[in-house]
């Protein structure tokens, strides 16, 4: 029978062994530290590992990476936050976003800079367009077209507005100005051999490349526009950097194993670091080639061919902890939109702070409504944001059932001077903000001369006025930015009908359809700068819809804008189940600012002929309608049939009345 040790004895034996091992380890580490020379560096940590990286760029505070997916990411070493950008430039004809192939970061002023590359065909040969795209701290974008080449760029270096673009046989040195989107070619350096490395200092650019077993060196003086050349007896040079302050050398070069200082005559002055002598460093580097080095006052950063960034701190005599930190995973925003709204997807790709994953529902609007309803009910709706301006979508039911997140806090935090807050206010439902209006079309005013002269109620005169105007001006309405729109005063209508109001609905619909036909008829032309608007009247004024319509040439008489209404052509909602509500709201604000017809005053000027008029309109909005109301969709459908002649006016009115009755009546009040 096998003899067994008692458990307690086993345990004591293991503990004693562990204690001995710990003491031995501590003593050994302490003695090693004391033996290290002072000006050597010691491996402290592996900060980041980037999978799928094309290029890495290192500064003490930010690590910039251009990824294989074409985006560039910036990781703040202190904040531990990741910022990401896409170029936002659409390639032609592929209609894909041009990818970034290199990323740089500038600290003062803060700039996130990317080099974007577009491959295209020029004279039957492949060619490459290169752009530098910079985002500043306010996310303002600046684009500089760098060059067009038949051979791809090998490397690109950037520092302090100096760009060095390295090709197969030359390196172009540019000075760029992101503020004015300008560039200046300083010099073009021709070289032979391989492995061209660049170091940019305040006044000079050092270029090194291998040739015949030695390394050729050239220093370009930016101010004097002169070159100084030399040669150093080291091959296999992998990186060059400006030496840190306090060193005798001017540059540091990295060979496979050695970090060496160079003086201004390119002579080696000292051996800074023998990396091979550090067993810890060897373990960390695992034989990777160092491709880039960067110094600051206390540390040296090294980027390796394996797309890792190592930070080496000067020995301080204290125990240094080896640890590894990973970048936070980038947030993904899932957006569902109908195919009619899919044009937003290009703009979404420009959103810098999250990956926007867009699901485009490619089916009729009625099916889209069923798709969302079913997903919400079954709990499978995993979107963060949905578009809510598709016809038939029962948005208010979604809100009532608690599927939609209230945006009150976020909207109230938006600076009033940057947004037309009136529009937000009039988009409220149950006193809360649920819908973020992204695209808004303001209705505009038609002045009825007859009404001005006190001949109210003369609808025929008004139509006559429209016709006269069109004959005089001969400018098709459809070519104007603003289409003539007749608004069905939907909200008051619904409210009135729900309160058993049964006034002159017939007359209202008659006026709406007649006017629409008159304005849509071929013989009618809206004058350039003349817009139409039908006042959204309350229940007591519903029957006066025709008489309250007015016409006015808005450019000539802007003072006529006493108030208006707007239609939310494109709106989004954040779902209550979203895990990324904060970023989702920020994304919607970004969309709104970037889109034309936005509720934000910015970036609209290029769309409209007279931004001042639009601003005046938007800032004086007194009512907003959600375009997608089921009832409105039905009325619009009938209106179309009336316009194309398949229904008479009486039939259209009757049909509209029936559908209004059905749409409103089939909702059973909850008791």
């Amino acid at each position, binding site marked *: 029978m096998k003899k067994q040790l008692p458990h307690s004895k086993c345990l004591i034996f293991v503990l004693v062994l562990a204690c001995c091992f710990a003491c031995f380890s501590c003593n050994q580490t302490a003695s090693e530290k004391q033996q290290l020379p002072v000006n050597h560096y010691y491996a402290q940590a592996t900060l980041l590992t980037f999978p799928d990286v094309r290029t890495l760029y290192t500064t003490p505070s930010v690590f910039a990476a251009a990824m294989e997916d074409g985006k560039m990411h910036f990781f703040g070493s202190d904040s531990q936050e990741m910022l990401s950008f896409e170029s936002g430039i659409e390639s032609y004809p592929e209609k894909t976003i041009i990818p970034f192939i290199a990323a740089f970061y500038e600290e003062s002023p803060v700039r996130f800079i990317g080099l974007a590359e577009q491959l295209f065909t020029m004279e039957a040969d492949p060619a490459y367009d290169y752009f530098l795209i910079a985002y500043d701290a306010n996310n303002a974008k600046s684009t500089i077209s760098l060059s067009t080449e038949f051979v791809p760029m090998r490397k690109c270096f950037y520092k302090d507005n100096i760009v060095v673009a390295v090709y197969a046989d030359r390196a172009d040195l540019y000075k760029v100005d992101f503020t004015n989107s300008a560039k200046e070619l300083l010099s073009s350096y021709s070289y032979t051999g391989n492995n061209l490395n660049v170091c940019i200092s305040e006044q000079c650019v050092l270029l090194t490349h291998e040739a015949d077993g030695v390394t050729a060196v050239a220093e370009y003086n930016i101010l004097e526009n002169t070159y100084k050349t030399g040669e150093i007896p080291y091959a296999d040079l992998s990186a060059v950097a400006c030496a840190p302050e306090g060193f005798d050398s001017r540059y540091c070069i990295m060979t496979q194993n050695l970090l060496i200082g160079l003086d201004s005559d390119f002579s080696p002055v000292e051996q800074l670091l023998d990396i091979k002598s550090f067993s810890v460093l060897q373990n960390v580097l695992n034989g990777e080639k160092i491709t880039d080095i960067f110094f600051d006052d206390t540390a040296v950063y090294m980027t390796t061919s394996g797309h890792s960034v190592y930070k080496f701190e000067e020995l301080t005599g204290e125990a240094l902890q080896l640890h590894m930190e990973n970048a936070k995973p980038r947030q993904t925003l899932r957006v569902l939109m109908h195919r009619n709204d899919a044009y937003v997807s290009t703009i979404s790709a420009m959103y810098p702070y999250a990956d926007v994953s867009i699901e485009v529902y490619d089916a009729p609007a009625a099916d889209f409504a069923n798709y969302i*309803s079913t997903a919400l009910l079954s709990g499978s709706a995993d979107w963060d944001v949905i578009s809510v301006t598709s016809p038939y979508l029962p948005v208010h039911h979604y809100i009532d059932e608690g599927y939609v997140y209230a945006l009150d806090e976020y909207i109230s935090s938006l600076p009033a001077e940057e947004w037309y807050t009136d529009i937000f206010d009039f988009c409220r439902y149950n006193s809360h903000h649920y819908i973020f209006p992204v695209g808004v079309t303001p209705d505009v005013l038609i002045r009825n001369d007859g009404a001005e002269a006190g001949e109210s109620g003369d609808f025929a005169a008004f139509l006559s006025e429209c016709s006269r105007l069109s004959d005089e001006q001969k400018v098709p309405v459809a070519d104007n930015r603003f289409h003539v729109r007749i608004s069905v005063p939907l909200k008051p209508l619904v409210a009135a009908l729900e309160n058993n109001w049964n006034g002159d609905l017939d007359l209202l619909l008659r006026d709406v359809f007649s006017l629409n036909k008159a304005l849509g008829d071929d013989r009618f032309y809206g004058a350039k700068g003349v817009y139409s608007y039908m006042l959204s009247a309350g229940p007591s004024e519903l029957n006066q819809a025709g008489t309250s319509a007015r016409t006015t040439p808005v450019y000539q008489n802007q003072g006529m804008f006493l108030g208006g209404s707007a239609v939310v052509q494109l709106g989004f909602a954040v779902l209550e189940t979203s895990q990324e509500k904060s970023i989702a709201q920020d994304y919607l604000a970004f969309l709104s600012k970037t889109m034309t017809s936005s509720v934000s005053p910015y970036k609209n000027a290029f769309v409209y002929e007279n931004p001042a008029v639009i601003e005046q309109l938007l800032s004086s909005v007194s009512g907003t309608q959600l375009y997608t109301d089921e009832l409105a969709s*039905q009325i619009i459908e009938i209106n179309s049939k009336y316009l194309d002649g398949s229904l008479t006016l009486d*039939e259209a009115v009757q049909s509209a009345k*029936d559908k209004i009755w*059905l749409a409103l009546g*089939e909702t059973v009040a909850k*008791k």
Partner: protein
Amino acid sequence: MRKKNRLTILLLLLPFLIGLCVFYVFPYLYGWYMSLRPTAWVALLQNAVFRMAVRNTVLFWCVGIPLMVLLSIGVALLLYENRHRHFFLCLIAVPLCIPGIYIGGVVSGLYERFSINENSGWSFVLIVVIYIWKYCGFDIIVLCSAFSAFPREIEEAAQIDGCKRSRFVWQILLPSVYPELSFVFLLSLLNSFSIYRELYAIYGMYPPKCVYLIFHFITNNFSKLGFDVVAVASCMVSAFLLIPILYFLRRERRFL
């Protein structure tokens, strides 16, 4: 041995029974559970659109189903002794294979081509015609096979006894195929639910008032997330359907 056979049958049926319970029985019972609020029933019954939908649906059943059953009987009587009946039966079954969306497209085109007003009473006639045209094929096939299986000797004996054709049909043939007739009736009733597809393809969510059926009410309320309303309305419909089903089952037992 017999017990073992039963067990085998039960095991073979088990996947089907599980599916039935999960996808039909449980939702159906849950629907009843959701509808257990008297106020919801009262609110629904007070709703004018719902009442109109029920009225239209009942009218549609009252007109469409008898017409279809009678037409099926007539055509089956013409065909069951015909040598080329298989060819005709195939022809009659073709509408069953045509997707509702095509029918909707054709009818919408006709509306536009002839400028027919949707709100006229023709809409109701139209959906009855579409219903009969599309679904009577199946009824005819069932009845034709039932008539064909009727013993020829009895028919000959009736002829020898001087029984007229009409009398033979009404007093001998039809009563003897009563189980198949009741099956055809129930089939027609169930097929009437499928007409919603064609209606939706023609008119969308909101058809003219005269053809707004209970299916529209249920579907539209579902899309508006009015699930309690949908539950109550569905329970009402199912309760109503149980009446003819139980009646026919009971009557059928007498003939078996």
